[in-house]
């Protein structure tokens, strides 16, 4: 196995049952229980995980909270151990599981660079050599001689990430650490990660930010309920994941408000396929328990609850069953799968209908243009452009 590869075979991991008994009496009760035949409860957080990553690949782990992403990362980085199975990583591991937990608040930035660097696995000599680069990347200037407890949270993040950014491991594991920090720094981090990957480092990246996943990983693994649901090219897996999230949202937001959507339909006004830049009509058959006055919202998203744009209309709706039609002109969508979300909110912000998905559709047309590497696109919008070079 060459340096930088990860091999995970049939890995299972369980945590012991929750301990919620601080009192002696409770402990006694627990003791009596545990003497009985096989009454131990475990929570399985990883079930039969198989994963192979070749050197230089960049792989994203996605999934909802509690699906086992972080645990898998911890098993791979040997922070914790699997209950069963085989896990092997060749080469030096750099695990960035939390960006500030290695920092000591009473020490100065300078002292912390050495502390955190060593903890992450750098030699002191390497840190000394990289010190100026690290400080420059973190953008800390004279604050480097200040105690870290007087840093703003953002500065601590920058310091933490900068140390890790110059780690030069064979395998880099990153867990949801870029979610914080301002836009500028996030961009800088993504660029740095892209650079590290180009240098041949294997990247395993956990994030809920699907846009950044799409920007920095060529493969994705989708974890759900402790098992691998799907893996493959980022685009496909992310799409499946989005569809599932949307599906879940539809199940969760069972209709019980004053207003209910009975039927939803979406089509191009000319009767053909939905294409980039065409007019799209949304037809919702709804039922109102009483006459309602408020704003009706329609939004288009990539499957998640965060829409790319919304339109709304103020009005009074009658009681009973009726139809709402809305034509979205020249929808600026590149090829892909999208969903329509709707909500109705009364004048005092009282929700008549919660924000929930009503239907999804496929748009045809040109692909989204790829941005430069390390740059992420938040919302895919298709815009026709005319160029001229004078």
């Amino acid at each position, binding site marked *: 196995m060459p340096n930088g590869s990860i091999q995970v075979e049939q890995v299972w991991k369980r*945590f*012991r049952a929750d301990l919620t008994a601080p009192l002696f009496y409770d402990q006694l009760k627990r003791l009596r229980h545990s003497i009985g035949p096989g009454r131990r409860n475990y929570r399985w957080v990883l079930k039969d995980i198989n994963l192979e990553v070749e050197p230089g690949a960049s792989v994203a782990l996605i999934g909802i909270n509690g699906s086992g992403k972080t645990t898998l990362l*911890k098993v791979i*980085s*040997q*922070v*914790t*151990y699997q209950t069963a199975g085989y896990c092997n990583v060749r080469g030096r*591991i750099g*695990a960035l*599981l*939390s960006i500030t*937990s*290695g920092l*000591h608040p*009473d*020490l100065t930035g300078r*002292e912390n660079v*050495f*502390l955190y660097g*060593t*903890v*992450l*696995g750098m*030699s*002191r000599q390497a840190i000394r050599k990289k010190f100026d680069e690290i400080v420059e990347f973190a953008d800390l200037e004279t604050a480097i001689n200040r*105690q870290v407890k007087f840093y703003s949270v953002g500065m601590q993040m920058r310091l933490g990430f900068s140390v890790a950014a110059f780690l030069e491991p064979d395998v880099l594991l990153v867990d949801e650490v870029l979610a914080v920090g301002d836009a500028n720094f996030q961009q800088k981090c993504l660029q740095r990660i892209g650079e590290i990957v180009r240098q041949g480092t294997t990247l395993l990246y956990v994030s809920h930010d699907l846009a950044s996943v799409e920007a920095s990983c060529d493969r994705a693994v989708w974890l759900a309920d402790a098992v691998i649901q799907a893996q493959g090219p980022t685009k496909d897996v992310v799409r499946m994941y989005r569809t599932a999230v949307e599906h879940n949202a539809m199940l969760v937001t069972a209709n019980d408000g004053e207003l209910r959507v009975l039927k939803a339909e979406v089509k191009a006004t000319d009767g053909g396929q939905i294409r980039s830049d065409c007019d799209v009509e949304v037809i919702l058959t709804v039922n109102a328990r009483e006459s309602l006055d408020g704003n009706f919202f329609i939004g288009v998203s990539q499957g998640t609850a965060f829409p790319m744009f919304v339109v709304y209309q103020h009005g009074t709706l009658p009681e009973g069953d009726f139809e709402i039609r809305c034509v979205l002109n020249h929808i600026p969508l590149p090829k892909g799968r999208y969903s329509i979300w709707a909500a109705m909110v009364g004048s005092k912000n009282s929700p008549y209908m919660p924000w929930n998905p009503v239907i999804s559709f496929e748009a045809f047309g040109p692909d989204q243009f790829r941005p430069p590497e390390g740059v992420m696109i938040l919302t895919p919008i298709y815009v026709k452009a005319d160029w001229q070079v004078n």
Partner: protein
Amino acid sequence: MLASAKRLWAHREIIFTLAERDFRAQYKQATLGILWALLSPVLTLVIMIAVFSRAKSFGTEGIPFALFSFVGILCWSFFASALGTGGNSLLSNKALLAKTQFPRECFPLETMGVTAINTVLSWIPLVILFVIFGRAPAVATLWAPLFMVLEVAFAAGVTMAVAGLIIQMRDLVQVLPVIISLGLFVNPVIWPLSKLSEPSVPKFVLPLYCFVNPLGPVIDNVRRTMLLGFEPNWYLVGIATLGALFYLVVGYRLFKRLEVSFADIA
């Protein structure tokens, strides 16, 4: 176990860095800063003299009691504070424990390093005592490093075992200080080890005591060599060596066995 020791050796820089972190942080915002490492043992010494110079002692083999007990206390306090801070070291480093992958024994060993530095500094006031009593350490003091090695091995074994067990049984956090303060009397700090070789004591007690508590013969031999100028009592030192090795091996193995679950339940 050899493989773990090898891995530990590869990560030795982490021990130094963490020790440096704690040492620096300890005195960071104190006005007198690092001077406290010297001052606090002097203060202890003053209290010691004030209190114990009046107490009727158990016989000190002709050594002034203040000197006799202070040497004992210095030896004992290294062990006590190594165990006190080292035993809790995994708990106090929870944040790192759950996020990093270096060998876990770095934590107890690192706190021992800090304790060692503080201890070395606290030997300096001993010079004051020597001057006060118009004595000088004997040439045989040169044996002291050997005893220190024994004490470090013993302390490392016990500290690692306790640090590992404390994660599983938090009750130990409460019990540990009590046990440590008890140790002040179990060890020959204010009484001479020769008490155990008196005719009224069964023959097997002394060797058994030296095996179970290697710190006892260590304290006794530091006194023998430094204050009386005798050769070390090789018989007892031999037993103590066996004992210290036993604790080191058992403690390290226990720690390694428990290590698997540290990150999950700490």
